[in-house]
Protein backbone atom coordinates (compact mmCIF):
# COMPACT_ATOMS: atom_id res chain seq x y z
CA UNK A 1 0.00 0.00 0.00
CA UNK A 2 1.43 3.38 -0.95
CA UNK A 3 -0.26 6.47 0.35
CA UNK A 4 0.57 10.08 -0.43
CA UNK A 5 -1.38 12.73 1.44
CA UNK A 6 -0.24 16.36 1.63
CA UNK A 7 -0.54 16.68 5.44
CA UNK A 8 -0.84 13.14 6.78
CA UNK A 9 -2.22 12.81 10.31
CA UNK A 10 -0.07 10.13 11.91
CA UNK A 11 -0.06 8.58 15.38
CA UNK A 12 3.28 7.22 16.59
CA UNK A 13 3.96 4.70 19.38
CA UNK A 14 7.30 4.37 21.14
CA UNK A 15 8.00 1.66 23.77
CA UNK A 16 11.63 0.69 23.16
CA UNK A 17 12.76 1.33 26.74
CA UNK A 18 10.99 2.75 29.81
CA UNK A 19 8.89 5.48 28.20
CA UNK A 20 5.40 4.77 26.84
CA UNK A 21 5.15 7.49 24.21
CA UNK A 22 2.18 8.38 22.01
CA UNK A 23 2.56 11.31 19.64
CA UNK A 24 0.40 12.69 16.87
CA UNK A 25 1.68 14.90 14.05
CA UNK A 26 0.01 16.47 11.03
CA UNK A 27 2.70 16.57 8.35
CA UNK A 28 5.46 18.62 9.97
CA UNK A 29 3.31 19.93 12.80
CA UNK A 30 3.40 18.41 16.27
CA UNK A 31 -0.09 18.10 17.75
CA UNK A 32 0.60 16.14 20.92
CA UNK A 33 3.40 14.33 22.71
CA UNK A 34 2.04 12.17 25.54
CA UNK A 35 4.62 10.24 27.56
CA UNK A 36 4.26 7.98 30.59
CA UNK A 37 7.56 6.99 32.14
CA UNK A 38 8.34 4.12 34.49
CA UNK A 39 11.75 5.64 35.33
CA UNK A 40 10.90 6.06 39.02
CA UNK A 41 10.24 2.33 39.34
CA UNK A 42 13.73 1.60 38.00
CA UNK A 43 15.64 4.17 40.05
CA UNK A 44 16.34 1.94 43.03
CA UNK A 45 17.79 -0.71 40.72
CA UNK A 46 20.22 1.76 39.16
CA UNK A 47 19.05 0.88 35.66
CA UNK A 48 16.02 -0.11 33.64
CA UNK A 49 14.58 -3.51 34.64
CA UNK A 50 13.10 -4.96 31.43
CA UNK A 51 10.17 -6.82 33.02
CA UNK A 52 9.19 -3.79 35.09
CA UNK A 53 9.29 -1.64 31.95
CA UNK A 54 7.20 -4.13 29.95
CA UNK A 55 4.52 -4.34 32.62
CA UNK A 56 4.35 -0.56 32.80
CA UNK A 57 3.94 -0.30 29.00
CA UNK A 58 0.89 -2.57 29.12
CA UNK A 59 -0.63 -0.61 32.01
CA UNK A 60 0.03 2.76 30.41
CA UNK A 61 -0.87 2.05 26.78
CA UNK A 62 -4.58 2.82 26.85
CA UNK A 63 -4.34 5.74 29.34
CA UNK A 64 -1.57 7.32 27.22
CA UNK A 65 -3.56 6.82 24.01
CA UNK A 66 -6.58 8.40 25.69
CA UNK A 67 -4.50 11.36 26.86
CA UNK A 68 -2.97 11.91 23.41
CA UNK A 69 -6.39 11.86 21.75
CA UNK A 70 -7.96 14.13 24.38
CA UNK A 71 -5.13 16.69 24.47
CA UNK A 72 -4.88 16.93 20.68
CA UNK A 73 -8.61 16.81 20.01
CA UNK A 74 -7.89 14.24 17.29
CA UNK A 75 -10.44 11.49 16.71
CA UNK A 76 -8.66 8.21 15.96
CA UNK A 77 -10.97 7.75 12.99
CA UNK A 78 -9.45 10.89 11.39
CA UNK A 79 -5.92 9.42 11.38
CA UNK A 80 -4.17 8.63 8.08
CA UNK A 81 -1.52 6.26 9.41
CA UNK A 82 0.09 4.54 12.39
CA UNK A 83 3.83 4.38 13.04
CA UNK A 84 5.62 2.35 15.68
CA UNK A 85 9.13 1.71 16.91
CA UNK A 86 10.02 -1.74 15.60
CA UNK A 87 13.52 -1.68 17.12
CA UNK A 88 16.18 -1.52 18.42
CA UNK A 89 15.37 -1.68 22.13
CA UNK A 90 14.20 -4.01 24.89
CA UNK A 91 12.41 -6.93 23.22
CA UNK A 92 9.56 -7.28 25.71
CA UNK A 93 8.93 -3.54 25.72
CA UNK A 94 8.99 -3.24 21.93
CA UNK A 95 6.44 -6.04 21.62
CA UNK A 96 3.83 -4.13 23.62
CA UNK A 97 4.08 -1.10 21.36
CA UNK A 98 4.22 -3.09 18.14
CA UNK A 99 1.17 -5.16 19.11
CA UNK A 100 -0.76 -2.03 20.09
CA UNK A 101 0.13 -0.34 16.80
CA UNK A 102 -1.01 -3.34 14.80
CA UNK A 103 -4.31 -3.42 16.70
CA UNK A 104 -4.86 0.27 15.90
CA UNK A 105 -3.95 -0.20 12.22
CA UNK A 106 -6.26 -3.20 11.94
CA UNK A 107 -9.15 -1.70 13.90
CA UNK A 108 -9.01 1.60 11.99
CA UNK A 109 -8.06 0.22 8.58
CA UNK A 110 -4.88 2.31 8.36
CA UNK A 111 -1.42 1.77 6.87
CA UNK A 112 1.22 0.79 9.44
CA UNK A 113 4.88 1.86 9.41
CA UNK A 114 7.34 -0.10 11.57
CA UNK A 115 10.28 2.25 12.01
CA UNK A 116 13.76 2.41 13.49
CA UNK A 117 14.08 4.10 16.87
CA UNK A 118 17.29 5.87 15.89
CA UNK A 119 15.87 7.18 12.61
CA UNK A 120 12.94 8.55 14.64
CA UNK A 121 15.34 10.49 16.87
CA UNK A 122 16.55 12.17 13.67
CA UNK A 123 13.09 12.72 12.19
CA UNK A 124 11.69 14.38 15.33
CA UNK A 125 13.63 17.52 14.54
CA UNK A 126 11.42 18.06 11.49
CA UNK A 127 8.48 18.99 13.72
CA UNK A 128 10.81 21.34 15.61
CA UNK A 129 12.94 22.98 12.90
CA UNK A 130 11.31 22.09 9.59
CA UNK A 131 12.52 19.88 6.75
CA UNK A 132 15.79 18.09 7.37
CA UNK A 133 18.71 19.22 5.17
CA UNK A 134 19.71 16.31 2.93
CA UNK A 135 22.21 15.05 3.79
CA UNK A 136 22.47 15.69 7.51
CA UNK A 137 24.98 14.25 9.94
CA UNK A 138 23.13 13.01 13.01
CA UNK A 139 24.61 12.17 16.38
CA UNK A 140 22.37 10.11 18.64
CA UNK A 141 23.43 9.85 22.23
CA UNK A 142 21.29 8.17 24.88
CA UNK A 143 21.37 5.55 27.59
CA UNK A 144 21.26 2.81 24.97
CA UNK A 145 22.95 4.31 21.92
CA UNK A 146 25.85 6.47 20.80
CA UNK A 147 25.92 6.73 17.02
CA UNK A 148 27.17 9.01 14.29
CA UNK A 149 25.05 8.73 11.18
CA UNK A 150 25.11 10.12 7.67
CA UNK A 151 21.50 10.73 6.67
CA UNK A 152 20.84 11.36 2.97
CA UNK A 153 17.13 10.54 3.43
CA UNK A 154 15.66 9.82 6.87
CA UNK A 155 12.85 7.72 5.35
CA UNK A 156 15.07 5.11 3.74
CA UNK A 157 18.78 5.88 3.55
CA UNK A 158 20.76 6.09 6.78
CA UNK A 159 24.42 5.12 6.95
CA UNK A 160 26.34 4.35 10.10
CA UNK A 161 29.64 6.25 10.40
CA UNK A 162 30.46 5.04 13.88
CA UNK A 163 29.07 4.06 17.25
CA UNK A 164 30.22 3.20 20.73
CA UNK A 165 32.43 0.15 21.07
CA UNK A 166 31.46 -0.34 24.73
CA UNK A 167 29.12 1.76 26.90
CA UNK A 168 26.59 4.23 25.55
CA UNK A 169 27.21 7.84 26.56
CA UNK A 170 24.12 7.87 28.78
CA UNK A 171 25.27 4.71 30.53
CA UNK A 172 28.52 6.48 31.47
CA UNK A 173 26.44 9.30 32.97
CA UNK A 174 24.42 6.74 34.98
CA UNK A 175 27.51 4.95 36.27
CA UNK A 176 29.43 8.10 37.16
CA UNK A 177 26.35 9.49 38.93
CA UNK A 178 26.24 6.33 41.01
CA UNK A 179 29.93 6.63 41.91
CA UNK A 180 29.29 10.21 43.00
CA UNK A 181 26.22 9.22 45.03
CA UNK A 182 23.85 11.09 42.69
CA UNK A 183 20.52 9.70 41.47
CA UNK A 184 19.29 7.74 38.47
CA UNK A 185 19.12 8.55 35.61
CA UNK A 186 22.53 10.14 35.86
CA UNK A 187 22.31 12.69 33.06
CA UNK A 188 20.17 15.39 34.70
CA UNK A 189 21.91 14.90 38.09
CA UNK A 190 25.41 15.30 36.63
CA UNK A 191 24.27 18.28 34.57
CA UNK A 192 22.91 19.98 37.69
CA UNK A 193 25.93 19.15 39.87
CA UNK A 194 28.32 20.37 37.17
CA UNK A 195 26.71 23.83 37.12
CA UNK A 196 28.47 24.54 40.43
CA UNK A 197 31.77 22.92 39.49
CA UNK A 198 35.01 23.75 37.73
CA UNK A 199 36.76 21.66 35.12
CA UNK A 200 39.73 20.73 37.26
CA UNK A 201 40.47 17.14 36.26
CA UNK A 202 41.70 16.05 32.84
CA UNK A 203 39.79 12.81 32.32
CA UNK A 204 40.64 10.68 29.25
CA UNK A 205 38.99 11.22 25.86
CA UNK A 206 38.20 7.75 24.48
CA UNK A 207 39.37 6.72 21.01
CA UNK A 208 41.02 10.03 20.25
CA UNK A 209 44.71 9.16 19.98
CA UNK A 210 46.16 9.16 16.49
CA UNK A 211 46.37 5.37 16.52
CA UNK A 212 42.76 4.99 17.68
CA UNK A 213 41.58 7.45 15.05
CA UNK A 214 42.98 5.28 12.26
CA UNK A 215 40.55 2.48 13.10
CA UNK A 216 37.87 4.24 15.11
CA UNK A 217 37.70 7.75 13.71
CA UNK A 218 33.92 8.05 14.27
CA UNK A 219 33.52 5.48 17.04
CA UNK A 220 33.17 6.23 20.73
CA UNK A 221 34.33 4.57 23.93
CA UNK A 222 33.14 5.61 27.37
CA UNK A 223 34.09 2.59 29.46
CA UNK A 224 37.65 3.80 30.11
CA UNK A 225 36.40 7.24 31.08
CA UNK A 226 33.87 5.77 33.50
CA UNK A 227 36.59 3.66 35.12
CA UNK A 228 38.98 6.62 35.28
CA UNK A 229 36.37 8.66 37.14
CA UNK A 230 35.61 5.79 39.52
CA UNK A 231 39.32 5.31 40.28
CA UNK A 232 39.90 9.01 40.80
CA UNK A 233 37.01 9.21 43.24
CA UNK A 234 37.97 6.05 45.08
CA UNK A 235 41.59 7.21 45.42
CA UNK A 236 40.40 10.39 47.08
CA UNK A 237 38.18 8.48 49.45
CA UNK A 238 40.95 6.02 50.34
CA UNK A 239 43.22 8.99 51.07
CA UNK A 240 40.54 10.36 53.41
CA UNK A 241 39.99 13.47 51.28
CA UNK A 242 36.65 15.01 50.34
CA UNK A 243 35.37 14.26 46.86
CA UNK A 244 34.63 17.51 45.00
CA UNK A 245 31.43 16.17 43.44
CA UNK A 246 30.66 19.27 41.38
CA UNK A 247 34.17 19.44 39.94
CA UNK A 248 34.22 15.71 39.12
CA UNK A 249 30.81 16.04 37.44
CA UNK A 250 31.93 19.07 35.42
CA UNK A 251 35.22 17.45 34.40
CA UNK A 252 33.56 14.17 33.42
CA UNK A 253 30.85 15.98 31.47
CA UNK A 254 33.53 18.02 29.70
CA UNK A 255 35.38 14.87 28.63
CA UNK A 256 32.20 13.30 27.20
CA UNK A 257 30.99 16.40 25.37
CA UNK A 258 34.47 17.23 24.05
CA UNK A 259 34.88 13.88 22.34
CA UNK A 260 31.26 13.77 21.10
CA UNK A 261 31.31 17.21 19.51
CA UNK A 262 34.82 16.86 18.10
CA UNK A 263 33.94 13.63 16.29
CA UNK A 264 30.58 14.96 15.10
CA UNK A 265 32.20 18.01 13.52
CA UNK A 266 34.98 15.88 12.06
CA UNK A 267 32.24 13.74 10.41
CA UNK A 268 30.56 16.83 8.95
CA UNK A 269 33.90 17.97 7.48
CA UNK A 270 34.82 14.53 6.16
CA UNK A 271 31.50 14.11 4.35
CA UNK A 272 31.19 17.78 3.45
CA UNK A 273 27.86 18.14 5.26
CA UNK A 274 26.78 21.55 6.52
CA UNK A 275 24.14 20.39 9.02
CA UNK A 276 24.49 18.51 12.31
CA UNK A 277 21.54 17.21 14.28
CA UNK A 278 21.90 15.91 17.82
CA UNK A 279 19.25 13.75 19.45
CA UNK A 280 18.75 11.21 22.22
CA UNK A 281 18.51 11.72 25.96
CA UNK A 282 22.10 12.97 26.33
CA UNK A 283 21.25 15.79 23.89
CA UNK A 284 19.29 17.26 26.80
CA UNK A 285 22.65 17.94 28.52
CA UNK A 286 23.24 21.68 28.74
CA UNK A 287 27.02 21.50 28.34
CA UNK A 288 26.70 19.33 25.23
CA UNK A 289 24.22 21.79 23.72
CA UNK A 290 26.45 24.79 24.48
CA UNK A 291 29.69 23.21 23.28
CA UNK A 292 28.08 21.87 20.10
CA UNK A 293 26.73 25.35 19.36
CA UNK A 294 30.16 27.00 19.86
CA UNK A 295 31.98 24.48 17.74
CA UNK A 296 29.37 24.39 14.97
CA UNK A 297 29.37 28.19 14.82
CA UNK A 298 33.15 28.17 14.51
CA UNK A 299 33.01 25.52 11.78
CA UNK A 300 30.14 27.10 9.83
CA UNK A 301 27.84 24.13 10.45
CA UNK A 302 24.13 24.59 11.11
CA UNK A 303 23.29 22.86 14.41
CA UNK A 304 19.84 21.46 15.09
CA UNK A 305 18.91 20.16 18.54
CA UNK A 306 15.25 19.63 19.42
CA UNK A 307 13.83 20.87 22.71
CA UNK A 308 14.69 18.62 25.64
CA UNK A 309 11.33 16.78 25.78
CA UNK A 310 11.81 15.71 22.17
CA UNK A 311 15.40 14.54 22.76
CA UNK A 312 14.37 11.84 25.21
CA UNK A 313 12.22 8.94 23.97
CA UNK A 314 8.74 9.96 22.87
CA UNK A 315 5.98 9.03 20.45
CA UNK A 316 6.10 12.26 18.47
CA UNK A 317 9.41 11.27 16.92
CA UNK A 318 7.89 8.03 15.65
CA UNK A 319 4.86 9.87 14.30
CA UNK A 320 7.15 12.38 12.59
CA UNK A 321 9.09 9.66 10.80
CA UNK A 322 5.82 7.95 9.85
CA UNK A 323 4.50 11.22 8.41
CA UNK A 324 7.70 11.64 6.37
CA UNK A 325 7.29 8.12 5.04
CA UNK A 326 3.73 8.89 3.97
CA UNK A 327 4.78 12.23 2.43
CA UNK A 328 7.51 10.50 0.45
CA UNK A 329 5.19 7.71 -0.63
CA UNK A 330 7.16 4.97 1.10
CA UNK A 331 5.37 1.59 1.15
CA UNK A 332 3.57 0.59 4.34
CA UNK A 333 4.91 -2.26 6.47
CA UNK A 334 3.26 -5.66 6.54
CA UNK A 335 1.01 -6.54 9.49
CA UNK A 336 3.53 -9.29 10.34
CA UNK A 337 6.33 -6.82 11.09
CA UNK A 338 8.47 -7.90 14.05
CA UNK A 339 9.74 -6.30 17.22
CA UNK A 340 13.48 -6.44 16.48
CA UNK A 341 15.57 -5.74 19.57
CA UNK A 342 18.80 -5.53 17.56
CA UNK A 343 17.44 -3.78 14.46
CA UNK A 344 20.44 -2.24 12.64
CA UNK A 345 20.35 1.52 12.26
CA UNK A 346 20.64 1.12 8.49
CA UNK A 347 17.19 -0.55 8.45
CA UNK A 348 14.95 2.49 8.66
CA UNK A 349 11.77 0.46 8.26
CA UNK A 350 10.68 -3.08 9.09
CA UNK A 351 8.10 -5.37 7.53
CA UNK A 352 8.88 -4.31 3.97
CA UNK A 353 8.11 -6.70 1.13
CA UNK A 354 11.65 -6.34 -0.25
CA UNK A 355 14.76 -5.57 1.78
CA UNK A 356 16.28 -2.13 1.49
CA UNK A 357 19.78 -1.80 0.13
CA UNK A 358 22.13 -1.47 3.10
CA UNK A 359 24.98 0.90 2.58
CA UNK A 360 27.59 0.68 5.30
CA UNK A 361 30.22 3.38 4.99
CA UNK A 362 31.73 1.84 8.08
Amino acid at each position, binding site marked *: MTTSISQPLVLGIETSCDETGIGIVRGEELLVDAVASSVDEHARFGGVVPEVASRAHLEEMIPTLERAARDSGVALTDLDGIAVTSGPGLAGSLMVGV*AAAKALALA*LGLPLYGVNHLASHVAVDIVEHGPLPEPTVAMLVSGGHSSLLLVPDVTHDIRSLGSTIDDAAGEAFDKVARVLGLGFPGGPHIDRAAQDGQITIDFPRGLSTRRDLERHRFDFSFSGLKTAVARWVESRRVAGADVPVADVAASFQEAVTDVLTRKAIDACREYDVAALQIGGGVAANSRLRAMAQERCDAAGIALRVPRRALCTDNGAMVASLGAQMMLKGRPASDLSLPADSSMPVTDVQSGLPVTVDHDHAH
Partner: protein
Amino acid sequence: MSTPITLAIDTATRAITVAVARGDEIVAQGQVLDARRHTEELAPLLADCLDRAGVGVAEVTQVVVGTGPGPFTGLRVGLVTAQTFAYARGIPVYGVPSLDAIAQGHVRLDAPAAGSEFLVATDARRKEVYHARYRVADDGRSAVALDEPGVSKPADLPAEVRALPAAGYGPVLYPDLFGTAVLPLDVDAADLAMVGLARIAVGAQMPTTPLYLRRPDAVEPSAAKSTLAAGGRAR
Protein backbone atom coordinates in the same frame (compact mmCIF):
# COMPACT_ATOMS: atom_id res chain seq x y z
CA MET B 1 -30.56 -5.59 20.18
CA SER B 2 -28.78 -7.09 17.20
CA THR B 3 -26.62 -10.20 17.57
CA PRO B 4 -23.34 -9.46 19.35
CA ILE B 5 -20.15 -10.24 17.45
CA THR B 6 -17.34 -11.31 19.71
CA LEU B 7 -13.63 -11.35 18.93
CA ALA B 8 -11.73 -13.71 21.26
CA ILE B 9 -7.94 -13.70 21.66
CA ASP B 10 -5.56 -15.74 23.79
CA THR B 11 -1.75 -15.83 23.90
CA ALA B 12 -1.12 -17.42 27.29
CA THR B 13 -0.14 -20.88 26.05
CA ARG B 14 1.82 -22.21 23.07
CA ALA B 15 -1.13 -21.39 20.84
CA ILE B 16 -1.68 -17.94 19.41
CA THR B 17 -5.43 -18.35 19.07
CA VAL B 18 -8.31 -16.24 17.74
CA ALA B 19 -12.04 -16.89 17.33
CA VAL B 20 -14.96 -14.87 16.02
CA ALA B 21 -18.45 -15.59 17.38
CA ARG B 22 -21.78 -14.37 16.06
CA GLY B 23 -24.09 -14.68 19.03
CA ASP B 24 -22.90 -17.92 20.64
CA GLU B 25 -21.95 -19.54 17.36
CA ILE B 26 -18.26 -19.68 16.41
CA VAL B 27 -18.03 -18.49 12.79
CA ALA B 28 -14.23 -18.49 12.40
CA GLN B 29 -11.36 -19.82 14.44
CA GLY B 30 -7.63 -19.97 13.84
CA GLN B 31 -4.40 -20.68 15.65
CA VAL B 32 -0.65 -20.65 15.19
CA LEU B 33 1.47 -22.87 17.41
CA ASP B 34 4.60 -20.79 17.94
CA ALA B 35 5.24 -19.46 21.41
CA ARG B 36 8.01 -17.16 20.17
CA ARG B 37 6.24 -15.26 17.42
CA HIS B 38 3.20 -13.65 19.08
CA THR B 39 4.15 -10.18 17.89
CA GLU B 40 4.45 -11.28 14.27
CA GLU B 41 1.59 -13.79 14.05
CA LEU B 42 -1.31 -12.44 16.10
CA ALA B 43 -2.41 -9.44 14.00
CA PRO B 44 -2.36 -11.26 10.63
CA LEU B 45 -4.28 -14.13 12.28
CA LEU B 46 -6.89 -11.66 13.56
CA ALA B 47 -7.25 -10.14 10.11
CA ASP B 48 -7.55 -13.61 8.58
CA CYS B 49 -10.21 -14.79 11.05
CA LEU B 50 -12.34 -11.67 10.59
CA ASP B 51 -11.99 -12.10 6.85
CA ARG B 52 -13.05 -15.75 6.94
CA ALA B 53 -15.94 -14.88 9.24
CA GLY B 54 -17.03 -12.23 6.76
CA VAL B 55 -16.99 -9.72 9.61
CA GLY B 56 -15.72 -6.18 9.15
CA VAL B 57 -13.81 -4.59 12.05
CA ALA B 58 -16.65 -2.11 12.54
CA GLU B 59 -19.11 -4.94 13.12
CA VAL B 60 -17.27 -6.39 16.13
CA THR B 61 -19.21 -5.48 19.26
CA GLN B 62 -16.98 -6.85 22.03
CA VAL B 63 -13.60 -8.40 22.68
CA VAL B 64 -12.79 -11.27 25.05
CA VAL B 65 -9.17 -11.85 25.99
CA GLY B 66 -7.29 -14.48 27.99
CA THR B 67 -5.62 -12.96 31.05
CA GLY B 68 -3.23 -15.85 31.72
CA PRO B 69 -1.41 -16.96 33.63
CA GLY B 70 1.18 -17.55 30.95
CA PRO B 71 4.69 -16.54 29.91
CA PHE B 72 4.68 -12.76 30.30
CA THR B 73 5.88 -11.52 26.94
CA GLY B 74 3.37 -13.44 24.87
CA LEU B 75 0.56 -12.82 27.34
CA ARG B 76 1.07 -9.07 27.04
CA VAL B 77 0.88 -9.20 23.24
CA GLY B 78 -2.63 -10.66 23.41
CA LEU B 79 -3.78 -8.31 26.17
CA VAL B 80 -2.51 -5.11 24.57
CA THR B 81 -3.89 -6.17 21.20
CA ALA B 82 -7.35 -6.83 22.66
CA GLN B 83 -7.38 -3.64 24.74
CA THR B 84 -6.16 -1.43 21.90
CA PHE B 85 -8.50 -2.95 19.31
CA ALA B 86 -11.43 -2.42 21.68
CA TYR B 87 -10.33 1.13 22.50
CA ALA B 88 -9.97 2.04 18.81
CA ARG B 89 -13.44 0.67 18.02
CA GLY B 90 -15.02 2.08 21.18
CA ILE B 91 -16.27 -1.35 22.30
CA PRO B 92 -15.90 -3.21 25.62
CA VAL B 93 -13.11 -5.71 26.35
CA TYR B 94 -13.56 -8.53 28.87
CA GLY B 95 -10.93 -10.69 30.54
CA VAL B 96 -11.19 -14.45 31.13
CA PRO B 97 -8.47 -16.43 32.95
CA SER B 98 -6.85 -18.60 30.27
CA LEU B 99 -6.90 -21.73 32.43
CA ASP B 100 -10.71 -21.44 32.51
CA ALA B 101 -10.73 -21.72 28.71
CA ILE B 102 -8.63 -24.89 28.85
CA ALA B 103 -11.07 -26.29 31.42
CA GLN B 104 -13.97 -25.45 29.12
CA GLY B 105 -12.11 -27.16 26.28
CA HIS B 106 -11.73 -30.31 28.35
CA VAL B 107 -15.45 -30.41 29.07
CA ARG B 108 -16.25 -29.88 25.39
CA LEU B 109 -13.77 -32.49 24.08
CA ASP B 110 -13.96 -35.26 26.68
CA ALA B 111 -17.40 -34.77 28.27
CA PRO B 112 -16.21 -35.77 31.77
CA ALA B 113 -18.91 -36.79 34.29
CA ALA B 114 -20.81 -34.02 36.04
CA GLY B 115 -19.29 -33.35 39.46
CA SER B 116 -15.92 -34.92 38.61
CA GLU B 117 -12.74 -32.96 39.29
CA PHE B 118 -9.74 -32.32 37.08
CA LEU B 119 -6.61 -30.20 36.97
CA VAL B 120 -5.37 -27.72 34.41
CA ALA B 121 -1.58 -27.34 34.40
CA THR B 122 0.29 -25.29 31.81
CA ASP B 123 3.95 -24.51 31.21
CA ALA B 124 5.17 -21.69 33.44
CA ARG B 125 8.81 -22.24 32.37
CA ARG B 126 11.56 -22.38 35.04
CA LYS B 127 10.46 -25.97 35.73
CA GLU B 128 7.15 -24.75 37.11
CA VAL B 129 3.51 -25.01 36.04
CA TYR B 130 0.54 -22.69 36.29
CA HIS B 131 -2.33 -24.67 37.74
CA ALA B 132 -5.91 -24.62 38.98
CA ARG B 133 -8.46 -27.34 39.92
CA TYR B 134 -11.91 -27.50 38.35
CA ARG B 135 -15.16 -29.37 38.89
CA VAL B 136 -17.51 -30.25 36.04
CA ALA B 137 -20.80 -28.40 36.54
CA ASP B 138 -24.02 -30.29 37.21
CA ASP B 139 -25.24 -29.79 33.65
CA GLY B 140 -21.98 -31.37 32.42
CA ARG B 141 -21.38 -28.50 30.01
CA SER B 142 -19.06 -26.16 31.85
CA ALA B 143 -16.35 -26.21 34.50
CA VAL B 144 -16.16 -24.33 37.78
CA ALA B 145 -12.79 -23.27 39.16
CA LEU B 146 -12.15 -24.63 42.66
CA ASP B 147 -9.20 -22.37 43.38
CA GLU B 148 -7.33 -19.33 42.12
CA PRO B 149 -4.60 -20.03 39.56
CA GLY B 150 -1.23 -20.73 41.18
CA VAL B 151 2.33 -21.33 40.09
CA SER B 152 4.60 -23.99 41.55
CA LYS B 153 6.95 -26.84 40.82
CA PRO B 154 4.86 -29.88 39.85
CA ALA B 155 6.40 -31.97 42.63
CA ASP B 156 5.28 -29.38 45.19
CA LEU B 157 1.59 -29.95 44.36
CA PRO B 158 -0.24 -32.32 46.76
CA ALA B 159 -0.27 -35.92 45.52
CA GLU B 160 -4.08 -36.00 45.33
CA VAL B 161 -4.05 -32.93 43.07
CA ARG B 162 -1.38 -34.41 40.79
CA ALA B 163 -3.40 -37.64 40.58
CA LEU B 164 -6.37 -35.82 38.96
CA PRO B 165 -6.79 -36.04 35.19
CA ALA B 166 -4.77 -33.08 33.95
CA ALA B 167 -5.34 -30.90 30.88
CA GLY B 168 -2.80 -28.42 29.51
CA TYR B 169 0.81 -28.87 28.45
CA GLY B 170 2.12 -29.42 32.01
CA PRO B 171 1.47 -33.20 32.05
CA VAL B 172 3.24 -33.50 28.68
CA LEU B 173 6.33 -31.79 30.10
CA TYR B 174 6.28 -33.69 33.42
CA PRO B 175 4.61 -37.05 32.63
CA ASP B 176 6.08 -38.74 35.71
CA LEU B 177 4.59 -36.19 38.08
CA PHE B 178 1.00 -36.07 36.84
CA GLY B 179 -1.77 -38.66 36.50
CA THR B 180 -3.71 -39.05 33.28
CA ALA B 181 -3.02 -36.37 30.65
CA VAL B 182 -6.23 -35.18 28.97
CA LEU B 183 -7.04 -32.69 26.22
CA PRO B 184 -6.66 -29.90 25.37
CA LEU B 185 -2.97 -29.00 25.62
CA ASP B 186 -3.44 -25.31 24.82
CA VAL B 187 -6.14 -22.65 24.84
CA ASP B 188 -8.61 -22.59 21.97
CA ALA B 189 -10.08 -19.10 21.60
CA ALA B 190 -13.43 -20.69 20.73
CA ASP B 191 -13.61 -22.05 24.29
CA LEU B 192 -12.44 -18.70 25.64
CA ALA B 193 -15.27 -17.00 23.73
CA MET B 194 -17.85 -19.43 25.18
CA VAL B 195 -16.68 -18.86 28.77
CA GLY B 196 -16.62 -15.12 28.13
CA LEU B 197 -20.12 -15.01 26.64
CA ALA B 198 -21.58 -16.94 29.57
CA ARG B 199 -20.01 -14.53 32.06
CA ILE B 200 -20.96 -11.41 30.12
CA ALA B 201 -24.55 -12.70 30.09
CA VAL B 202 -24.65 -12.76 33.90
CA GLY B 203 -22.84 -9.45 34.29
CA ALA B 204 -19.72 -10.92 35.93
CA GLN B 205 -16.71 -8.77 36.79
CA MET B 206 -14.19 -9.50 34.01
CA PRO B 207 -11.02 -7.44 34.48
CA THR B 208 -8.29 -7.61 31.84
CA THR B 209 -5.51 -7.39 34.41
CA PRO B 210 -2.75 -9.87 33.53
CA LEU B 211 -2.33 -12.81 35.91
CA TYR B 212 1.46 -12.74 36.22
CA LEU B 213 1.60 -14.60 39.58
CA ARG B 214 5.30 -13.75 39.82
CA ARG B 215 7.11 -10.54 40.63
CA PRO B 216 9.61 -9.16 38.11
CA ASP B 217 13.17 -10.41 38.49
CA ALA B 218 15.19 -7.50 39.72
CA VAL B 219 17.88 -7.11 42.31
CA GLU B 220 18.95 -3.88 43.91
CA PRO B 221 22.61 -3.15 43.20
CA SER B 222 25.22 -4.08 45.81
CA ALA B 223 28.06 -1.73 46.71
CA ALA B 224 30.29 -0.85 43.76
CA LYS B 225 33.38 -2.99 43.29
CA SER B 226 36.74 -1.37 43.89
CA THR B 227 38.30 0.03 40.74
CA LEU B 228 41.72 0.34 42.34
CA ALA B 229 42.57 -3.33 42.74
CA ALA B 230 43.97 -5.30 39.79
CA GLY B 231 44.01 -2.23 37.59
CA GLY B 232 40.37 -2.38 36.51
CA ARG B 233 39.52 -3.26 32.94
CA ALA B 234 42.16 -1.67 30.75
CA ARG B 235 41.40 -0.42 27.29
